[in-house]
């Protein structure tokens, strides 16, 4: 059986855990009880995906590697997630600035990411790496639901009130440029393609563009122009925000190294 490189599994896992962490920030603070519960389900799916991927990576690394060692005892520069998923749930501000969470940012980010991952998991469900393919098949169902949920809200925001339209457009303007990172393959992704276990991300772009075009048209939102900056989160070069996120997430586990929970 072909095997996906460990770094490739970590990239998929890091994306899921970091976005799961971000979505979970809404738990208990959602705009309405029903939606609070819905978004917690998205978080739970993402953390579930991360766990399966870290477990698979840990098994392949061998030795004393575990899912939690991978999630809790790697530093920001070792994380391979897209910069998009680590950004706070609000507009463009530096890492130590206090700001209110903005639901439009959360929803638009979930939309951009799950549109990619719905295509990505679909492709990986046919991976020659059977263990990865099994995780992908499970994640695909979950991600399709996340995409549905996010796209539904994107349309409601865009075609809702003046304020919701303004917020959704601002979130799209803020976040869209971070998606540039999706389309420039990293060495890890190249290796996964070469090993025959993954598809070239660039082949997913037309499908992603079509998904966006349809939803943004319904939402009466305008896709912003991008030029210049291409984020490099998947190379380990992150925004200022990831170290805060991991600093919080890892604090307790690192204060008690070797403890079992």
């Amino acid at each position, binding site marked *: 059986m072909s095997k996906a490189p460990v770094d490739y599994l970590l990239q998929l896992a890091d994306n899921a855990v970091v976005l799961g962490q971000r979505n*979970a920030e809404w738990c208990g603070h959602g705009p309405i009880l029903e939606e609070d519960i819905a978004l917690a389900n998205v978080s*739970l799916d993402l953390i579930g995906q991360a766990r399966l991927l870290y477990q698979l990576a840990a098994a392949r690394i061998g030795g004393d590697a575990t899912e939690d060692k991978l999630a809790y005892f790697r530093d920001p520069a070792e994380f391979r997630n897209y910069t998009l998923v680590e950004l706070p749930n609000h507009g463009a501000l530096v890492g130590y600035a206090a700001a209110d969470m903005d639901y439009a940012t959360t929803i638009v980010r979930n939309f951009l990411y799950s549109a990619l991952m719905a295509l990505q998991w679909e492709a990986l469900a046919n991976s020659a790496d059977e263990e990865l393919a099994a995780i992908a098949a499970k994640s695909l169902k979950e991600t399709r639901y996340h995409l549905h949920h996010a796209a539904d809200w994107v*349309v409601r925001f865009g075609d809702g009130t003046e304020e*919701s339209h303004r917020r959704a457009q601002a979130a799209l303007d803020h976040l869209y440029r971070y998606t540039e990172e999706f389309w420039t393959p990293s060495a890890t992704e190249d290796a996964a393609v070469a090993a025959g276990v993954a598809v070239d991300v660039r082949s997913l772009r037309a499908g992603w563009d079509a998904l966006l075009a349809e939803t943004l048209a319904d939402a009466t939102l305008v896709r912003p122009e991008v030029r210049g900056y291409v984020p490099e989160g998947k190379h380990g070069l992150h925004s200022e925000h990831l170290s805060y996120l991991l600093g919080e997430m890892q604090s307790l586990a690192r204060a008690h190294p070797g403890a079992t*929970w």
Partner: protein
Amino acid sequence: MYTQAMDIPDESGKKLAAVPPAHSEQEAAFEARIDADGRIEPQDWMPEAYRKTLVRQISQHAHSEIIGMLPEGNWISRAPSLKRKAILIAKVQDEGGHGLYLYSAAETLGTSRDEMLEGLHSGKAKYSSIFNYPTLSWADVGVIGWLVDGAAIMNQVPLCRCSYGPYSRAMIRVCKEESFHQRQGYEALLVMMKGTEEQKAMVQDAVNRWWWKCLAMFGPPDADSPHSAQGMRWGIKRVSNDELRQKFIDATVVQARVLGVTLPDPDLKWNEARGHHDYGQIDWQEFWNTVEGNGPCNKERLSTRVKAHEDGQWVRDAAQAYASKQKERASKEAA
């Protein structure tokens, strides 16, 4: 059915049900059904005081679930393993679900969720005081599951037989989901008690801080409990505060021993003659202080809920605006 909207179709009948005359026949039928341990349903005639008491009790219960998401939610971002993180999110989410079931049950009595939230946000409505204490370490999450949820279950299981149908059905659902929260918390503590010295100390410290608050959760002693007697008569309260408290203590002593923690009460000991454990004096002054809004976290908890609600306003408005536009478009197309 869980809604006041499913009232009787007749408009005059509706008014009649909403403003009942002091009709002795209706009253007698109501009392007879309560005495026969029957269920009262939303469309049935009921005394205004019964309705009011239920709205107060159910909405307080719902508010408690929603406010109760906050102390445990405090540790979601720092849960020490991914497994524990998932368990905790699911648990806090369940509490949100319970709040929703309960608001739904209360809505069948003719009070909207809006009105109930208004009561909470303005400080008029109460919620369980236990959530006005801070969660200071990860062990608090386990102890809340074990002791706070344990106490809540003692309180809630009898309500599955409550005389008001929608409330009793909501409680059956809540109890089904809640029953394993206690096991979950206890299991998390068992793992920690098999761990490092720091982990064990963390658990004992959390038990010390939460034990007495949990005992107070059952409410004032029966002698000082103003609403209890009428509640018992109406079958919306089934077992008295003191009885439940005693039951909880008796059950917890063994669990604490197995866990290897000490319950912080020097007077706690088995009384052969009573067949129960004796226990020390609960600090009711502190309890009432907290109920009246002067506990450590009352203000934080409440303003956090108010903020979430206000920040969510534009989201709710957007969904509604979109739905109206869609409806309009559909009717234009049809025309």
